[in-house]
């Protein structure tokens, strides 16, 4: 099992190594996709193997894999496979169109693999200090992807991203310090420092932690890692970064990176709930969550760059997950985790579709795209279906998870909050669908260049379609039926959180 945990992290590095060794776009792309496939296989295997066993521990507490880690590993692995496969076609098409040089293509694959590997590694560590180190490193790797195109706009977005996220994560480090300090009570004198910063230890001794210090630590962690999650008001980097990154990288940002930040918050949440009780973390998460949903929805009303629209939808959905964590209870946590997986797949599909559209139309403005269903039926249909999926319409998975979250809200004391959430979801539906249905339907623009396929060769064209179709099928399946293994995994993850 231990070896599996290492293979899982090393998988995405295949693309990095291939690109660093000088492979061409297509070879590096396939290497990266194959590596991602290995990672997904390892993640599934790990889930099956670890489902009914004690958490995997090693390296003096630095390696720690429990069901919660497994769940997030699985989510990130799925997204990595989708995005790596989508990259093959997208990057080749961009290189053929002369928008990326060969050097930029190599940079892309080097940092894509590093980014994925660092995120996966951060979910396999039980040491909260190392968690910070890995998350900050993944910020830096992904910043290179955001600024890849080298234009003024993308460099500015990358700058904004790296400086805001680094500041945020540094604040989370201050939170980690206070957590470490709160554990420095007489009770823990005999333990080594390595152990005092590990999650299982802190969780087991949560009641003995100094409360004032713990409270400050949680607040700093939510603000700090919340910057990575894109919780309002720390979300300002997110729309720019998502709009400027190459589309498969946007998919990774939205569907994997944001979840990595949420994973860190959930770890802190569990300790805080065990140490301070439900009320304090509940209020903090509900405030940040609702603020994010409101901000996300408000900015979705504006038309314009469709990748920005998808980015604000990510802010909204991260807010929903925070709200679900705030509602709490078994139902709330179940909804939060299920929604994490569903949103990850749906957003990966949406951003990959946006990449397909951007490659065909050479624009990221929604006004420049019309009549997709007529010109490129498959892309148009994918855009429509993915939009409805992400907005939570049945029969897709997000309907089920949002329904669960609202139910968890009604199980609480006051019906005001879940009603407010429902209202906001309705507004989001109208705002989002207005733009995407406009892009998919209507008369194609006369000047549209979208007739010819930008992909050379059937293999690369297939990579633009395959992940999108696979993702949509997965969303449909998750909407109709939760596989028994997944249900058990989520159940065990909730049990981990106490």
């Amino acid at each position, binding site marked *: 099992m231990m070896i599996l945990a290492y293979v899982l992290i090393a998988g995405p590095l295949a693309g990095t190594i291939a690109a660093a060794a000088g492979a061409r776009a297509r070879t590096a792309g396939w290497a990266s996709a194959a590596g991602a496939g290995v990672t997904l296989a390892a993640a599934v295997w790990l889930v099956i193997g670890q489902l009914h066993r004690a958490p995997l521990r090693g390296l003096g507490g630095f390696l720690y894999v429990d069901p919660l880690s497994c769940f997030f590993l699985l989510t990130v692995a799925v997204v990595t496979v989708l995005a790596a496969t989508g990259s093959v076609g997208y990057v080749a098409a961009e290189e053929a169109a002369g928008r990326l040089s060969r050097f930029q293509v190599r940079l892309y694959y080097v940092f894509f693999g590093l980014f994925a590997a660092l995120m996966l590694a951060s979910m396999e560590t039980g040491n909260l200090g190392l968690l910070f180190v890995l998350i900050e490193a993944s910020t830096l790797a992904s910043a290179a992807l955001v600024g890849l195109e080298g234009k003024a706009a993308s460099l500015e977005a990358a700058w904004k991203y*790296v400086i805001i996220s680094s500041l945020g994560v540094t604040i989370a480090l201050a939170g980690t310090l206070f957590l470490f300090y709160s554990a420095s009570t007489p009770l823990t004198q005999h333990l080594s420092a390595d152990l005092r910063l590990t999650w299982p230890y802190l969780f087991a001794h949560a009641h003995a932690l100094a409360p004032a210090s713990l409270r400050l630590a949680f607040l700093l962690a939510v603000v700090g890692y919340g910057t990575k999650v894109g919780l309002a008001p720390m979300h300002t980097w997110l729309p720019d970064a998502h709009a400027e990154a190459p589309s498969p990288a946007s998919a990774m940002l939205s569907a994997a990176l944001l979840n990595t930040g949420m994973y860190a918050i959930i770890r802190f949440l569990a300790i805080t709930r065990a140490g301070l009780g439900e009320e304090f973390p509940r209020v903090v998460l509900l405030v940040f969550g609702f603020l994010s949903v409101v901000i996300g929805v408000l900015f979705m009303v504006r038309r314009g760059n469709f990748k920005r629209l998808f980015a604000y939808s990510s802010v909204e959905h991260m807010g929903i997950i925070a709200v679900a964590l705030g509602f709490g209870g078994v139902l709330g946590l179940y909804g939060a985790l299920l929604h994490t997986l569903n949103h990850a797949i749906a957003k990966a599909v949406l951003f990959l579709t946006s990449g397909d559209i951007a490659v065909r139309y050479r624009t990221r403005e929604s006004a420049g795209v019309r009549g997709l269903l007529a010109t490129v039926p498959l892309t148009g249909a994918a855009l429509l279906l993915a939009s409805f999926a992400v907005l939570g319409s049945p029969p897709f998975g997000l309907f089920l998870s949002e329904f669960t979250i609202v139910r968890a809200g009604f199980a609480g004391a006051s019906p005001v909050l879940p009603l407010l959430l429902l209202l906001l979801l309705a507004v989001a539906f109208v705002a989002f669908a207005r733009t995407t249905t406009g892009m998919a339907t209507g008369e194609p623009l006369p000047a549209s260049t979208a007739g010819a396929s930008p992909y050379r060769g059937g293999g690369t064209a297939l990579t633009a379609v395959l992940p999108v179709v696979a993702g949509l099928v997965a969303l449909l399946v998750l909407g109709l039926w939760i596989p028994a293994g997944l249900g058990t995994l989520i159940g065990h993850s909730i049990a981990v959180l106490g």
Partner: protein
Amino acid sequence: MSRVQNLSATSVPGVLLDLSGVVILLLAFACLASKLFNRYVAYYGAQSVVLSFAAGVAAYAFGSVELWVLAIATLAIKGIGIPVAARRLLIRRLDLKRDAALSTGLSTSLIAGGGLTAFAYLVTRPQLLPHGLVAAAVVPLSTAVILLGALAMVVRRHTVAQLVGWLIVENGVFLGAITLVATFPFIVEAGIFLDVVAGVLIMLVFVSGLTRELASASAAELRELQG
């Protein structure tokens, strides 16, 4: 294990740590009060040198080899490497002199800085830390440095100034780390250090690329006006 917390504020190392913290805070204020790019970098460099001295004091007091390593690395990289690189690669090459992109006046930001320092004392001192220990004296200082760095990032819009602001935040966290928890696992401390170095490198690339792009964009505008 928690010798750090037991280090009293009146012992010699305790006094030295406390004093270093004060100097680091004053240098953060100096940076906030300055308008010249040269000075930003100089104050940051001086702050890092004092920080490495503080790390050395802590290393001596606790007899910790890892802290010695960190003290030397801080001196070499943060005290010398980063300031020299910033001066060569950014300030001289991009010909940066006076920072005009301030969103508030200097006096306003200094007053705000004073308020944040008071806030840092208010939040950290009474409830978190027992009196009489060095941590109780230094943690409010380090929190104040973190807040001042963040303030510098907010009131300054120039990328180089924001970069220096982030580095000051990082120094504040590091100051807290060596006094509050000198027993932090070494791998983690080393990882944090590497992250800072990698972060500075990648930010240098973005800043110089961005400045070049903007310069060529404005030059293109000029040509258009001429034609």
